[in-house]
């Protein structure tokens, strides 16, 4: 899981460009950004960015440590030099700063539902994914069952809709989708199959790492942490 695994992707966003529909009015400045959630949110807003720089695992930059002294982790967004941390906080900020197209619904109770599911994903799904790939030897049945139960909750929340947000790609979709590229690794280590139809959206397909690459990454991490395969 990129947010927990100390990878660094540094992307520099220069001047904001005109979106397809209207000019986003924002003071100019450099936006420096690490990782998938925010990348997808910015891409949805039509913000272009330059190619990323990567640093080695474990070699956290001074910039990262200064920007996130509390957690020392990615993702971090720097806007005009001011840092923000935590994926849901960053995506909320992006939505408020570049309001078009909106990621959160306009109605307060729907916004509350979106925040509820983002919170659920943040609290439950990430841990459940980690419990599977971090297991030594055979993955315990409890870890597998917990992951499946959690997925069922999410599927229930999605229902027949195209997106968690209803007719349009939204806040919860941004939070949920980067996890889908981890399903292949979870399946491989967990020994079960997850249906994955989420990779079609252009911003998502362009940004998310290849599931095979994620799996290779997980194997490397397991070796690094001394977890047997």
């Amino acid at each position, binding site marked *: 899981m990129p947010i927990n695994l100390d990878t660094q992707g540094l992307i520099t966003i220069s001047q904001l460009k005109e979106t397809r529909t209207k000019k986003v009015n924002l003071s100019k400045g450099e936006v420096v950004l690490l990782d998938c959630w925010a990348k997808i949110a910015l891409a949805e807003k039509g913000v272009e960015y330059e190619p990323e720089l990567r640093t080695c695992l474990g070699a956290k930059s001074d910039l990262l440590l200064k920007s996130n*002294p*509390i957690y020392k982790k990615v993702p971090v967004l720097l*806007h005009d030099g*001011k840092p*923000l*941390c*935590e994926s*849901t*906080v*960053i995506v*909320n*900020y992006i939505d*408020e*700063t570049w309001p078009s197209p909106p990621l959160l619904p306009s109605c*307060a*109770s729907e*916004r*509350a539902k979106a*925040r*509820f599911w983002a*919170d*659920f994903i943040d609290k439950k799904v990430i841990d459940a994914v980690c419990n599977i790939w971090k297991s030594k030897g055979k993955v315990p049945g409890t870890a597998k069952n917990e992951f499946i139960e959690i997925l069922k*909750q999410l599927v229930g929340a999605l229902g027949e809709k195209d997106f968690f947000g209803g007719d349009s790609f939204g806040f919860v979709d941004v939070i949920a989708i980067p996890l889908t590229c981890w399903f292949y690794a979870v399946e491989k280590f967990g020994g079960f199959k997850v249906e994955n139809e989420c990779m079609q959206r252009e911003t998502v397909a362009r940004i998310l790492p290849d599931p095979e690459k994620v799996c290779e990454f997980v194997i490397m991490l397991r070796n690094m942490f001394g977890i047997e395969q």
Partner: protein
Amino acid sequence: MAEVKLHGALLSPFVYRVIWALKLKGVPYEFVLEDLSNKSALLLKHNPVHKKIPVLVHGGKPVCESMVILEYIEETWPLNPLMPNNPYDRALARFWIKFAEDKGVAVWKMFRSTREELQNTMKEALEMLQTVEEHGLGEKKFFNGDNIGLVDLAFGSIVYWLQVIEDIVGAKLFESHKFPHLHAWIETFKQVPVIEENLPNQDELLVALKLRREQLMASA
């Protein structure tokens, strides 16, 4: 105006966050007392995912999770704002709210821990306090600046309950010489009129939590 109901239990720190927010905004509501050992069908219908209190029901629509409820209250009743008005400061507030949610659990873990586990849970709680003292509050009167805000409500419930839980488990964490800013802040927080009028009595809380801890240790 649509009816507001709050499903909760007595002496829950999460419920008190919602009570404080509603009172600060002057929103009238009906309190629906839930028996946590025998949860009502209505609660389970409103919160099928977590099956927990608090749940706010506004015009029949449920909102769950205390900090999601607080953001909903802030957006629905904008008078007496409890969040900053610029996006960056709002993002910082949300960061600290999330920190309170993620790391504040150390206090509840401490309450539930056995003698063997206590050292570790105390250490977690201490680290949480140190981070907040050093990075979160600084010299400000409230986390929200000059006025009380959602971050204050998030930490208010944690610290007020910690002061009682410390006594019960026999730990001494929250010392004024170690946490001068937080100590000054919690006193200021408790003196805000709406908070002062809506705080659980500390003696009652002590008795109730002592009993709960005895029950937990007996079943451990």
